[in-house]
């Protein structure tokens, strides 16, 4: 691997950030790296909006009475928390920000296959987001993010239609991004970069893209039908009009279960990059980790009925969905075992990204294992729709996905911005987030098994103590999330300049300067090595 000579410190070379100036050069850019930054800003905004809703929810739940909000307001809060976090943060975050930035760099390409479509994806996302924010500002939606019919299609008198249109539109952004990634990964790999030399991040982005393309149309249609039933009273879901309410659940979960993997697979990809780098070791079981991503993508489509064990679907459907749900747990377990084994005999350092990755392994393990309870037919009867489920999926989504996302942001921040952030602050924030997270969500497993249903703003007093823990944890978590916002911003101006490869990592993206020039690589690199050949890297200087 040829390494570039150290850049002259005095003047900044031309890179994608300073290549052109002005609002126009950003808003109409077709550079995948700039588009990634457009997403980063927008997604961060949505994350904090969704986060404020979460804090308000936790505040209300501090006491068993409904003292802060009316029932209507509370219902809107948890609905909008869910909708914004899922459709506007969790689903796009890693693919649209890090995927956009990294896919071309990791394969030695100039850009994505369709740069203009990439920009279009962003604007579709922005338009969808605008509709959603409109429906929030206009008074909100109270259906829960799941839009169960016939409540959403007939009974709710909130701004369901605008919200549904927003999500429908955003879906196209997802589809186009997935398409772009798939074509790019197939067609634009640098010479010598075979499939089995790809960084695992790309395998998981690839698997994610498949889900985005195949699953999104289903939820889009389901939501479009809800809107049509609201506007035209066609009888699709409401039994009074001759419809079937369970049909909606099938259509909805056919996408929304795989969507869980849209959220977590890219996170797993990030962890697969970070763990080898900070263990200075090849990933253990590369091909097993790679294929487990594909296995998850395929099996993930066959388990949607596990959301309907008590919904009134047939016993036999329940049995099949339960069996398949257990199967999909195996590839996730394989990944966890392989990451753990990668540490073995490594040279482990604890820089900020690694702390997030290790945190991810721990929290994802808990999230995954508690998923077994939900996949078990007889047990799901008791815990379904209780806080046990809430705790389970927050361990996956927040403990897993958000930890990985933050790990990735910290890992590639020097590449993206050309600046280093203070590592001690980074580690402090990671620790605060880990503690705050567990304090928030672990008690919810207990209160869930006790029987506290989800979406209750008033609850029996015996559940209060556990809820107080949760709320306390949520405030710590909130501080933890604000910290990176502050020091990362700070680093933009005051952070030390980053060399091309601050972590001494393998991977093509680290061969480009930090930040990379607009065309990424002056000459297309020739890849003659396997992924993660850390044994061949020169020893890092302390």
């Amino acid at each position: 691997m040829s390494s570039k000579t150290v850049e002259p410190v005095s003047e900044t070379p031309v890179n994608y950030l300073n290549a052109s100036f002005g609002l126009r050069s950003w808003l109409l850019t077709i550079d995948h790296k700039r588009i990634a930054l457009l997403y980063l800003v927008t997604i961060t905004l949505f994350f904090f909006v969704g986060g404020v809703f979460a804090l308000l929810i936790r505040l209300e739940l501090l006491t068993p009475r409904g003292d802060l909000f009316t029932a209507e307001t509370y219902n809107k809060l948890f609905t909008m928390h869910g909708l914004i976090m899922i459709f506007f943060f969790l689903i796009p975050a890693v693919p649209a920000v890090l995927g956009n930035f990294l896919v071309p760099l990791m394969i030695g390409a100039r850009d994505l296959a369709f740069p203009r479509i990439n920009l279009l994806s962003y604007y579709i996302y922005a338009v969808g987001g605008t509709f959603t924010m409109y429906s929030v500002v206009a008074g909100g939606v109270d259906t829960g993010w799941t839009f169960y019919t016939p409540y959403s299609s007939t009974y709710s008198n909130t701004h369901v239609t605008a919200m549904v249109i927003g999500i429908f539109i955003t879906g196209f952004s997802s589809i186009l991004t997935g398409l772009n990634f798939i074509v790019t990964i197939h067609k634009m790999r640098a010479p010598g970069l075979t499939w089995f030399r790809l960084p695992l991040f790309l395998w998981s982005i690839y698997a994610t893209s498949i889900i985005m393309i195949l699953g999104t149309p289903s939820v889009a249609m389901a939501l479009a039908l809800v809107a049509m039933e609201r506007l035209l009273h066609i009888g699709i879901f409401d039994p009074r009009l001759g419809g079937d309410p369970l049909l909606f659940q099938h259509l909805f979960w056919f996408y929304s279960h795989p969507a869980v993997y849209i959220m977590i697979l890219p996170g797993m990809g990030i962890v697969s990059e970070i763990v080898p780098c900070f263990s200075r070791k090849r990933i253990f079981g590369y091909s097993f980790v790679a294929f487990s991503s594909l296995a998850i993508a395929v099996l993930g489509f066959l388990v949607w009925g596990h959301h309907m064990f008590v919904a009134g679907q047939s016993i036999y459907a329940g049995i099949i969905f339960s069996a398949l749900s257990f199967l999909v747990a195996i590839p996730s377990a394989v990944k966890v075992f392989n990451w753990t084994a990668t540490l073995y005999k490594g040279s482990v350092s604890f820089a900020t990204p690694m702390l997030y990755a290790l945190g991810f392994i721990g929290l994802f393990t808990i999230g995954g294992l508690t998923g077994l309870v939900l996949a078990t037919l007889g047990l799901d009867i008791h815990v379904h729709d209780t806080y046990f489920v809430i705790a389970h999926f927050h361990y996956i989504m927040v403990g897993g996905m958000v930890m990985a996302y933050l790990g990735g942001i910290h890992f590639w921040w020097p590449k993206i911005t050309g600046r280093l952030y203070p590592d001690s602050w980074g580690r402090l924030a990671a620790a605060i987030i880990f503690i705050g997270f567990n304090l928030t969500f672990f008690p919810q497993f207990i209160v869930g098994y006790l029987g506290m249903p989800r979406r209750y703003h008033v609850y029996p007093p015996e559940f209060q103590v556990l809820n107080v823990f949760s709320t306390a944890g949520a405030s710590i978590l909130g501080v933890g999330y604000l910290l990176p916002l502050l020091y990362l911003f700070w680093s933009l101006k005051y952070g030390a300049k980053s060399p091309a490869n601050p972590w001494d990592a393998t991977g093509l993206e680290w061969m480009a300067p930090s930040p990379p020039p607009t065309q990424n690589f002056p000459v297309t690199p020739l890849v003659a090595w396997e992924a993660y050949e850390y044994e061949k890297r020169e020893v890092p200087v302390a």
Partner: protein
Amino acid sequence: MWNFPLFPQQASTSARSTDALFFFLLGVMLFFAVLIFVLVFIFAIKYRRRDTSYVPPVIVQLVSLEAAWIAIPFGLVIVIFAWGTLLYFEHRSPPPGAIEMYVVGKQWMWKTQHPEGQREINTLHVPVGRPVKLIMTSEDVIHSFFVPAFRVKQDVLPGRYTSLWFQATAAGEYHLFCSQYCGTDHAQMIGTVVAMEDADYQRWLGGGAAEGTMASAGERLFNRLGCATCHLESGQGRGPALGGIYGRGIGLANGRVATADEDYLRESILNPGAKIVGGYPNVMPTYQGQVTEEQLMQLMAYIKSVKP
């Protein structure tokens, strides 16, 4: 304040069987969580970077190890799956002779009816030690009937019946929650299940206003709505005799056979043209909009009670 519960009361037969499986699974979860945590911890500490010139060995993969950590979890999940499925069957198969009670959910209350005729709102009295089967439907949106102390839950759907059963094992008052989000006052759609010793329960039944049993209320309706003019007990009327049809296979005009369960009876009354009984003309009028969910349930109780 600190003596709050960490584990729910066990007040039904299925509570015990559910918790048994839960504790088994808790063991499995603890084992794997501790395994991963300990390994990550040990590796991270033991192999922490001390000497920056140390180059870790290349370990690409170990197929036997991969096979082991695919096969062992696989074997384990098969056990959990099988056990969970058996438990599910137990939940889904009410023992013969269970007392049938009826539940109607609506935004935001639970209405219940006992076969003896008692009606309650947001409360349900049940005897200890006898299986009770609930036949449930909703007037509007989807609700879910959840009694944590019994470990039972079932969504309640508009336009069709779902059911669940339990056998209380300890007298007491237990939370009843609606666990499927159903709109504004979802969190207030709560109530109490009162389990009483059988003798107390009989006394409670005796104390209620005597409107007659559900079946007799159903019979009165049957006459008032004119059903009886066509459905003669002799079978000589324009419609088939209804005695003993509940649970039987019905030969339809299109050659298929339908089982006369609750959903079939419901459809026969609200949408009689959907499935025509073989040998009969499609002349029965629809009763859509003329009977409430509770009246439908009374009619059903009556039809079930008629002897062939």
